[in-house]
């Protein structure tokens, strides 16, 4: 006898977990299948989780799903209180304060790292689900879905098949469920962004000092101009508690036109003098060990130095974190906080004097990652269901991507609640038919304010930008834009123009708005003419892609989860450049794949047979 469950949720990201929590809140039984060994090890996000307060309609926010507990003890990083847009050209930067745009219709926006946050979500959702006879099963990769009567049989690589009455597909932008069911074609480069991110280490109080923020505040900095290397997209830098998320997000089709290695885009950002100054830190550099010493002595010195540097790093993090300082003193390890500082100095002295360790200015990179981001304006599923399978979040192609406004996590959570509500209603009636459940979900999604944002230009949001750019002389940003600015400055005309644009159709306008002009030329011009000069005090040492990959953790699978279909196609040839971890190379006239370094972003998915790795296999992110 096959086991049977009411609901199977596929994918343990923020959306899948929210669906599990919501269903459990409603007293329904659901199980969630996650391919990673633990929830959170496969998740990557640019890094801001919003809670929205729309003008009309309602959204389901993270705190609605998880309750007041979320605000009390969820491991979010920092509440973003400053939101800046920088136009760059070489060493010149022109800055606009877009905090008003960030706060527009928002209760809050937190910077987050998903490894920790999703683990917290999983604990809460898992406990609630357990009470309803469900729960989270990790390390399980769903291979196929098939239908027998009104039941769906779920097959995995790891477990015996089981039945479910309803399925929620939350398996991300590279949704295999979408492919298995044929419910939507794979996304095309025009519909996607490629995001690459590095997590940079920086002690807590140094962050606060450098960004001019308090202990409970955070800053977000966006970059456009020459840092984009003439591609359509931009860079970002968000402050976390004691790390920074630094990344680049680019129109995938722009990268297809003129392929650039993804890491060169991040490197360009890191090399920008402003960013370089933001990420800089004090780094200990080991001195070469004297090769003339006896072998044992060399070994002893190497161990001693490594250990001291580790201690120095750890103590330094403690010294720059009030909470960590307090904890160490309370634990009785040190009598006073000053004693920690004294110890830190003595370790540093020992390193410098005894072992000739140099302390230099550089930055410390912790994790390199990449992800595809769906642009909801272009690829949100019109009917986000197939039979009794409901698609949510990235899997349904739903993300809000408007200028600097990038929202995905909160959209996925809102979708998930709507899907859970539709499923719960279907369980009550024992009717999982597409009319009763799928159509109803489709309707709920249609009512979502996020869907409205994916379809229409919001004139109030436009105004915020115009206000932010009020001081910019109209003539210096090119004739075309100058005219638009002047036109839009009047409330009535703006209302008319936006109204007209919405009638014309948002999608028809996009190629005009999202162009190289907007993302590169105008910012460069702004920076050149109005920017202030910024000088970097050092040159960051940028790791190679091989070094970045070497720092990642993997559970290797001998069998590749990706199959190249046509090793001679133009698309695959571009993958040699576009794969963030350089898994593809040319051999003779053929593109060959070495899958071991794959970080499962799906950039190559369009023309490959692309699967997520089997349960527990593949990349294991530590930060997310």
């Amino acid at each position, binding site marked *: 006898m096959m086991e049977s469950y009411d609901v199977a949720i596929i994918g343990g990201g923020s959306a899948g977990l929210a669906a599990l929590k919501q269903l459990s809140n409603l007293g329904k039984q659901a199980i969630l299948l996650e391919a990673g060994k633990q929830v959170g090890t496969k998740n990557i996000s640019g890094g801001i989780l919003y809670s929205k307060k729309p003008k009309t309609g309602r959204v389901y926010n993270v705190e609605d799903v998880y309750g007041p507990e979320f605000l009390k003890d969820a491991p979010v990083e920092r509440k973003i209180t400053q939101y800046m847009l920088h136009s760059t050209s070489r060493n010149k930067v022109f800055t606009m304060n877009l905090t008003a745009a960030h706060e527009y219709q928002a209760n809050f926006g937190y910077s987050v790292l998903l490894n920790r946050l999703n683990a917290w979500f999983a604990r809460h959702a898992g406990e609630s689900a*357990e009470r309803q006879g469900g729960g989270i099963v990790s390390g399980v990769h769903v291979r196929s879905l098939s239908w027998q009567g009104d039941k769906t049989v779920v097959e995995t690589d790891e477990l015996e098949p089981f039945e479910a009455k309803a399925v929620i597909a939350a398996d991300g932008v590279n949704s295999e469920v979408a492919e298995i069911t044929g419910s939507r074609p794979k996304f095309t480069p025009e519909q996607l962004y490629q995001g690459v991110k590095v997590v940079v280490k920086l002690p807590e109080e140094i962050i606060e000092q450098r960004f001019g923020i308090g202990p409970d505040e955070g800053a977000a900095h966006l970059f456009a101009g020459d840092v984009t290397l003439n591609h359509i997209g931009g860079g970002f830098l968000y402050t976390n508690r004691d790390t920074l998320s630094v990344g680049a997000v680019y129109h995938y089709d722009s990268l297809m036109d003129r392929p650039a290695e993804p890491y060169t885009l991040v490197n360009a950002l890191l090399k920008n003098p402003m960013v370089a100054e933001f990420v800089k830190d004090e780094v200990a550099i080991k001195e070469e060990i004297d090769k003339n010493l006896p072998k044992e002595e060399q070994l002893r010195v190497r161990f001693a130095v490594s250990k001291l540097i580790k201690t120095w790093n750890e103590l330094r993090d403690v010294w720059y974190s009030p909470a960590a300082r307090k904890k160490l003193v309370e634990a009785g390890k040190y009598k006073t906080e000053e004693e920690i500082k004294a110890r830190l100095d003595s370790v540093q002295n020992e390193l410098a004097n005894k072992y000739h360790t140099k302390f230099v200015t550089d930055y410390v990179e912790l994790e390199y990652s990449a992800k595809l981001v769906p642009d909801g304006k272009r690829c949100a599923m019109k009917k986000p269901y197939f039979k009794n399978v409901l698609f949510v979040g990235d899997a349904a192609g739903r993300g809000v991507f408007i200028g600097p406004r990038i929202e995905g996590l909160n959209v996925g959570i809102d979708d998930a609640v709507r899907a859970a509500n539709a499923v719960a209603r279907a369980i009550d009636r024992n009717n999982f038919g597409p009319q009763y459940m799928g159509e109803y979900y489709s309707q709920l999604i249609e009512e979502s304010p996020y869907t409205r944002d994916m379809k229409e230009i919001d004139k109030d949001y436009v105004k915020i930008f115009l206000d932010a750019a009020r001081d910019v002389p109209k003539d210096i940003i090119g004739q075309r834009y100058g005219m638009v600015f002047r036109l839009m400055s009047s409330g009535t005309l703006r209302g008319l123009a936006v109204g007209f644009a919405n009638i014309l159709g948002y999608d028809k306008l996009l190629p005009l708005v999202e162009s190289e002009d907007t993302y590169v030329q105008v910012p460069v011009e702004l920076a050149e003419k109005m920017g202030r000069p910024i000088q970097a005090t050092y040159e960051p040492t940028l790791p190679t892609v091989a070094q970045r990959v070497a720092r990642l953790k993997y559970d290797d699978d001998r069998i590749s989860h990706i199959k190249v279909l046509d090793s001679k196609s133009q698309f695959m040839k571009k993958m040699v450049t576009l794969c963030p971890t350089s898994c593809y190379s040319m051999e003779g006239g053929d593109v060959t794949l070495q899958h071991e370094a794959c970080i499962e972003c799906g950039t190559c998915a369009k023309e490959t047979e692309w699967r997520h790795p089997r349960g527990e296999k593949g990349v294991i992110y530590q930060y997310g």
Partner: protein
Amino acid sequence: MANLNVAVIVKLEPDFSEGNVSYNADGTLNRAETKSILGPHSAVASSAAFYAKVRYGASVAVATMGPPIADSALQQAQLLCDADELYLYSDRMFAGADTLATAEVLKTGISKLEGKMDIVFSGHRASDGETGQTGPQTAWKLGFTFLGNVIDYDVDMQNRIVRARRMISLQGFYDVVEEVEAPLPVFIAIDPSYKASFNTVSQRLAFEKYQKEAKERAQNYKQYLKVFNAQQLGVDPKLVGLPGSPTIVYKVERIPKAKASRRAEVVDGTNREQLAKVATRMYEVVGGMVIK
């Protein structure tokens, strides 16, 4: 709810893992310096008991004979198998026990447990004694069917039958897997290669649930712990400890290091003639294999 009762007998052993073990100058184990942990084979036995808990909702008891600090072995075992009860049989009288005297204590303890035991698990052997006798002797004293080298088992709850697969090594030849059936109660000595696998959603969910419970329980393991001395246990003093031991270990000798018997010959890599000699020699050794 549980209608399957299982027990595991475990042993606190020196931690032989790298970096933790310490020897005296004469080559004997320095027991004071070496940390003690739950023996690796006991750990495997515990995970086999956990399988019974996850699959059949079994109630699990863990028992050990040893000094008071042996309760740490029970705690570690509880973390592995989410034990409902922990038993420590501890008395000066038990000191110097060989396998037979140990089996007497364990048998008496297991017989005293609430509810009739259906399966008793033990490890394959201890990592310090290596005799592998305590398990079988306890089985014999209990009068249970003994199944050794078990790599996998299932219980037919309806018919109260155990189906087990045993790994039998025919030394120097090959390994065979034997499938056996036995009515409960049985004593299972678990093979070191045993690995529990959970293949259905419900098993995985139960696994998660009990694992979480195990963590919580092991943190407060004393709450589940009962300590018995010889008198409370009601053992016959003649059958336990030194008096009950027909064997004693009176001397341990180190195995002498084998003398190296390799002879090295230096070949000049630029000399073709000498290289040809190497090739011929390699050909002799690997025999007929084609080297490309």
